[in-house]
C-alpha cells in the first residue's frame, strides 16, 4: 500500500539535507539527509544518546541547525526552507499542518483544562468561533481515539496514561495535519496499552494518509508502524532502508546487535 502512495505522490513532503547539530565539541547529529513522502512513515531507531531526539527537533524547526537545511512542501505546493520561515509562519505550521506527539503527554496537553478544550484548542487557534461545532469536532475525535465521549469535560489529569496519550494524538490530528512527529509515543505505557495504541495509530495513519517521523528505541514499534527505518548511532545514520529489509536482514554490525538484542517471544 505504501508503494502505491509513493507512486501517487512523487513530490517529497519533507527534505532534510546534510543536517548537523553540535553542542560545543559534541556533535549530536552529523550529516543526515533523507526525503519523506506524503503518507510515508519513517522510524528513526537507535540507542539513547544516538541523536534521535535532536534530529526530531531539528526536523520540526524547534532547534536551529548548525549546518544543512530542512525544507517542507507547504499546503500551497511551494517547498520552503524552514529556517527562512518567520516565527509566526512556523508556529502556524506547527498548529495546523503538523502534529507533535510527545513521549510524556503532560508536555503536549494542558493538564488542567478539559479534554474537549484540549482537542478544541487548535481549532480555536485557527479562528473557529462556534462552541457547538468545536465541541462536535472534539467529541468526534475522542470517539476516533476510543475515549468515551462522556469524559469530554474531564481534565486529562484524571485520565490513565494510555488515555492521555490517545488524547494527545486526537489533539494533534484535529486540524488535519499532513505530517506528524512522534517522540517515543508508546514509551512509559504497559505492553497491552502499547499494543492498542499502536493499532490505533496504524489505522489513523493509513486512513488519514499521514506522513510520520517516529523516533523510537523499540524495534517492535518500528516494525508495526513504519515503512522505512533509519538506524542512528553516535549522531550518524548508519543504515537506512525498508523496514522489513533492515530488521530482517541488517547489514551493519550495530544494527545486527540491535535486532538480535530483542528477546524472542
Amino acid at each position, binding site marked *: 500500500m505504501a508503494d502505491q502512495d509513493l507512486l501517487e505522490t512523487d513530490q517529497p513532503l519533507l527534505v532534510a539535507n546534510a543536517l548537523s547539530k553540535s553542542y560545543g565539541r559534541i556533535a549530536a547529529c552529523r550529516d543526515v539527509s533523507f526525503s519523506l513522502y506524503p503518507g510515508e512513515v519513517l522510524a528513526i531507531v537507535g540507542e539513547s544518546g544516538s541523536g534521535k531526539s535532536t534530529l526530531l527537533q531539528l526536523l520540526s524547526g524547534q532547534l536551529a541547525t548548525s549546518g544543512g537545511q530542512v525544507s517542507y512542501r507547504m499546503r500551497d505546493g511551494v517547498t520552503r526552507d524552514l529556517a527562512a520561515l518567520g516565527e509566526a509562519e512556523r*508556529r502556524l505550521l506547527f498548529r495546523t499542518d503538523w502534529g507533535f506527539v510527545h513521549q510524556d503527554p503532560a508536555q503536549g496537553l494542558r493538564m488542567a*483544562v*478539559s479534554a*474537549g*478544550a484540549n482537542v478544541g484548542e487548535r481549532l*480555536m487557534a485557527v479562528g473557529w*468561533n462556534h462552541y457547538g461545532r468545536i465541541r462536535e469536532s472534539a467529541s468526534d475525535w475522542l470517539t476516533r481515539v476510543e475515549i468515551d465521549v462522556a469524559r469530554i469535560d474531564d481534565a486529562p489529569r484524571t485520565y490513565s496514561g494510555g488515555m492521555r496519550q490517545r488524547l494527545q494524538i486526537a489533539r494533534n490530528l484535529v486540524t488535519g495535519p499532513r505530517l506528524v512527529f512522534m517522540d517515543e509515543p508508546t514509551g512509559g505505557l504497559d505492553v497491552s496499552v502499547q499494543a492498542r495504541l499502536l493499532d490505533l495509530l496504524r489505522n489513523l495513519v493509513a486512513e488519514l494518509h499521514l506522513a510520520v517521523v517516529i523516533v523510537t528505541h523499540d524495534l517492535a514499534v518500528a516494525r508495526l508502524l513504519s515503512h522505512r527505518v533509519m538506524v542512528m548511532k553516535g549522531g550518524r545514520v548508519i543504515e537506512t532502508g525498508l523496514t522489513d529489509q533492515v530488521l530482517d536482514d541488517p547489514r551493519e554490525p550495530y544494527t545486527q546487535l540491535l535486532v538480535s538484542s530483542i528477546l524472542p517471544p
Partner: protein
Amino acid sequence: MNAPAYNFAYLDEQTKRMIRRAILKAIAIPGYQVPFASREMPMPYGWGTGGVQVTAAILGPQDVLKVIDQGSDDTTNAISIRKFFAKTAGVATTTSTDEATVIQTRHRIPEVALHANQVLVYQVPIPEPLRFLEPRETETRRMHALAEYGLMHVKLYEDIARFGHIATAYAYPVKVNGRYVMDPSPTPKFDNPKMDNCPALQLFGAGREKRIYAIPPYTKVVSLDFEDHPFEPYRFNAPCALCAAENSYLDEIVTDDKGSRMFVCSDTDYCEGRQAAGHHGALSAAPYKDKAQGGANG
C-alpha cells in the same frame, strides 16, 4: 498649594516623565502592555499603586480628581487616595462623575457616560489576560506579538463546558482595536460595553506588575465570545433599593444575620444623584444625605 514638603503630586519630575513616555506609547498601541519602572508608593501593592502613579503623572493643578473603589466614593481606598492627592498636589477633589477631569477607579466604570475631557485611570492587579492559562511571561509576550489568542477562547470554552454559559463575570477579556487582547482589570463584565467607543481616555496602571496600557478615545473594544454563546453583560435583576434604578450595576448588601439583603447601586454618586432628583426605591426611607464632600476641600 499646601504641600511644600513634596514635589507636585508626590512623584519627582523625572519619574513622571518616564511614566508619561510609557503612557504615550500605550496610547499609540491600544491594548499593548508597556513595561515601566514602577516606583514604590506610600501604600501597599494591591491598593492601587499603579493607578496612583498614572494619576500622579497626568495630574495638573487645574484638574478635578474623583476616586472610586468598586463604584463607591467613600470606602477607605477611595478616601485615602483622594486625600493623598489633595495633600500632595493640592488639586480639587469631587465625588461627582460629571465634574471630574481625572477619575481613578478600582473595579468599576461610572454609570454616567464619560465625556471627552475626562481621563479614566484604572488600578490593575494582573494586567496579563493569558496569565492563568499560560504561566510563562516570555510565552505570553510572544503570543501577544503574534496575535495568537486561541487560548483565550479555551478559557471561555471551559466556562461553557462546565456551567453551560460563559461564567466569567469580571476581568472579561476584550479585543482592543482589532489587535491586542486585554484584561479590562477586574471590572464586572457589565461595564465592558462602556469601554467601546468611549469619548474619554482610558489608562490602566499595574504597579506591582510594572505595566501600563491604554484605550484611546473612540476606540473599538470588543468582548470575546462564541457565535453561539454571545457576550452578555450581567446584572442582578432588581431595581436599586435606594434610587429604583433599573439599569445600574448593583451591590448586594447583607443587612442582618437572618438572610436579609438589599441591592443598591454600586456607583454611589449615580445613586445619590438619582435620589436628589426625586427617585426613590423600596428601602429609601432614610432622609436624603446631603453631598458633603463635593469639591469644597481643595
